[in-house]
C-alpha cells in the first residue's frame, strides 16, 4: 500500500469534514476521490499531504508513519485547482523550485527541468511567466513542478476544475497517459463522476465526510453499495419502487412477462439516445433507448406501452457497508 489512511477525523469548528475515514491506496494506482462538494474529499487529500492536521487517526505513506511529519518532509507532490503558480518566477524556475531548494547541481537541474517540460509539452515556454500561459498550460506546469522532486505520491485537488469543458476533456486523457508513463501513485479529487470513471482505475466515493464505497468504476456503477452511490455514479429512475438505470428498462408494444402498462408523456431526442418519459400507474419514470428502438416503436407522447426491468439488469443491492469495501 502506498497510502494508508486509518480512522481519520477532522472538524472545522462544528463542521465535520472527515468522519472515521479509512482508505488504502495501492502503489502505482490512479485513484479518484469522488463526491459532492463539501463531502470532505479535498480535506482528505490535504490531510494526506500534511497541509491539514487530522484531529485523530493516522496517515502512512509508503509504509512510513507520516501523521506527525510536516508537509515538506512527506515527499508528496501537490497540484492545486487554481494552479498556485509562483507568479514572480519563469516557467523554468517554477519547475526547478523543488530542486533548487535541495541545492542540486545546476546542470542536473537544467537537465531534469528540460525533461519535465518536454513531458508536459511546455518546452518552448520555459522563459515565459505564468501569467502568459493559458489555464491548461499553467496546470501542466504545476504538474511538472510537483513531479520534479520525484514524489512518492502525486495528489491533485480538482486539477481541471478551473478549466473549460473542452480543455478538461483533453487533459483527462493526457493525465491518464502521463500516469502510464510516469507510474507514480496518483490520487485526484473530482466532483465529476464522468471524469472519475474515465480517468481512474479505482474510485473512493465520499459524502458528508464519510467513505460511501471504494471500488473500480465498473463495480461502483454495477454494484453500488447504496442509493447515494447509485445516484451519484449515473442516471437512475425507479420502477415499482425500486431504483434502476434508465437503460435497463425494456419497452414492449404488447403485455408480456412481468411488464407494467405505461403512458408515454414525452419523447426527447439527444442525438443517438432518446429519453422517454413515462407515466407508470401515476408514478414518473424514464427510459433511455436508442433512436432505432424509438422509431421502431413509433414512440410519441400519449402512446401506451408496456415496460419492465431487463432481466439481465444487475440487481441494485446493498453490498458491504461503507468504508470496508
Amino acid at each position, binding site marked *: 500500500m502506498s497510502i494508508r489512511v486509518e480512522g481519520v477525523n477532522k472538524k472545522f469548528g462544528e463542521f465535520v469534514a472527515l468522519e472515521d475515514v479509512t482508505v488504502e491506496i495501492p502503489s502505482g494506482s490512479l485513484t479518484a476521490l469522488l463526491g459532492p462538494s463539501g463531502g470532505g474529499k479535498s480535506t482528505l487529500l490535504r490531510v494526506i499531504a500534511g497541509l491539514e492536521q487530522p484531529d485523530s487517526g493516522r496517515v502512512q505513506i509508503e509504509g512510513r508513519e507520516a501523521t506527525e511529519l510536516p508537509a515538506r518532509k512527506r515527499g508528496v507532490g501537490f497540484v492545486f485547482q487554481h494552479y*498556485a503558480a509562483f507568479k514572480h518566477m519563469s516557467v523554468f524556475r517554477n519547475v526547478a523550485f523543488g530542486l533548487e531548494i535541495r541545492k542540486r547541481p545546476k546542470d542536473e537541474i537544467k537537465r531534469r527541468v528540460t525533461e519535465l517540460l518536454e513531458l508536459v509539452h511546455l518546452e518552448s515556454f520555459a522563459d515565459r511567466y505564468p501569467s502568459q500561459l*493559458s489555464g491548461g498550460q499553467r496546470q501542466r506546469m*504545476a504538474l511538472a513542478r510537483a513531479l520534479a522532486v520525484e514524489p512518492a505520491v502525486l495528489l491533485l485537488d480538482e486539477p481541471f476544475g*478551473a478549466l473549460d469543458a473542452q480543455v478538461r476533456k483533453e487533459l483527462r486523457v493526457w493525465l491518464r497517459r502521463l500516469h502510464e508513463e510516469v507510474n507514480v501513485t496518483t490520487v485526484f479529487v473530482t466532483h465529476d463522476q464522468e471524469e472519475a470513471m474515465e480517468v481512474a482505475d479505482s474510485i473512493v466515493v465520499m459524502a458528508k465526510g464519510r467513505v460511501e464505497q471504494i471500488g473500480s468504476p465498473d463495480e461502483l456503477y454495477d454494484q453500488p453499495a447504496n442509493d447515494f452511490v447509485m445516484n451519484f455514479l449515473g442516471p437512475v429512475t425507479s420502477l415499482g419502487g425500486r431504483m434502476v438505470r434508465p437503460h435497463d428498462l425494456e419497452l414492449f408494444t404488447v403485455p408480456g412477462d412481468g411488464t407494467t402498462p405505461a403512458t408515454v408523456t414525452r419523447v426527447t431526442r439527444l442525438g443517438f439516445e432518446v429519453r422517454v418519459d413515462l407515466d407508470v400507474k401515476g408514478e414518473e419514470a424514464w427510459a433511455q433507448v436508442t433512436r432505432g428502438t424509438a422509431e421502431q416503436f413509433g414512440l410519441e407522447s400519449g402512446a401506451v406501452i408496456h415496460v419492465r426491468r431487463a432481466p439481465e439488469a444487475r440487481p441494485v443491492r446493498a453490498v458491504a457497508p461503507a468504508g470496508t469495501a
Partner: protein
Amino acid sequence: MTSSKQQSGAGAGLVDEAPPASGVATGSAADRFAEGSTIRRRGDRPPGRHGPGLGLGVVLLYLSVIVLIPLGAVVWHAFDSGLSGFWQSVTTPEASSTLKLTIGASVLVGLINMLMGTLIAWLLVRDRLPGRSVLDTLIDLPFALPTIVAGLALLTVYGPESPLHFSIAYTRTAVVVALLFVTLPFVVRTVQPVLLELDREMEEAATSLGASPRTVFFRIILPSIAPAMAAGTALAFARAMSEFGSTVLITGNLPFKTQVASVHIFNQIESDNVTGAAAVATILLLVSLVVLVALDALQRWAGRRD
C-alpha cells in the same frame, strides 16, 4: 497590482483557453493571449463618447494650474541669478547642512519604515492578534492628524518637560522620530492589501515541494510583496523630505543641527531670499522626482510578469 489575480486566472482559463493538445501547436494561440492581455492592461480602452480630446484637455489644464506651473515657477526662480547663483544658494554652509540632514534623515526613515511597516502589515493580515481592528484604525491616525499636533504630542512626551524624564528635544534623533511618526502609514497601507491578496496556495505549494518556512518567506512571500514595499518606502521618503509641522516644535530648528529643509526654505523667504529658497526647493523637487521615476521603473520591471 496583484489584486483580482485569482479571478482573472480562472477567467482566463474559461475565456482565453488555448487548445493544449500539443504544446507546440498552442504556441501561437498563447502568444496571442499574452499580447492581448498586455494591451488590455495598458489601458488601451476604446475612447469615450467625446473622444480623448476633451478629457485630456481638462486634465492637462487642471494639472498645469495646480501643479506644473507653480513648480515651474519655483525652478525658474531658482535660476534667477544663473547656474552659478543656484549653485551658490544650495552650497552655503547652512543650505548644504540642512539638505544633508533632510535627505539623510529621510533615507533612514524610509528604511525603518520599510522594515517596521512590513512587520505591522504582516501582523494585521496574518496574525489573529486581539485588538487587531483597533490597531488597524490607529495606523491611519498620523494621516488624519494635523502634523503640528503630532509635533505637540511628541514634545509633550519626549520634550524637555518629559514626564518619562526622557528628552530628545533639539537633537537629530527628534527629527527622525517626528518623521517616523508622520510616515508610519505609507508602507503599512501599500503592503497590507498585497499581503491580503497573496495566494496562500503558493506557500502551500512551496511547502509541499520541501521548502522550510524561512525559504517560503524569502523565496515566495518577499519577492511578491517587494514592489509594494518599495512603493511604500518611496512615498514615505518623499513625505519625510517635505515634512514641516511635526518637526518644528520638538527639534528647535537649530541651524547646522536640526533644521530641516522646509524650515530653511521658510526662513529664507522670511529674510527675502526668494532665490535661495527656490534653489533649495528645487533640490528637494529633483530628489523626489528621481525617487518617483526610479520607483516607476521598478514597478514596470516587476509588472512585466503580471
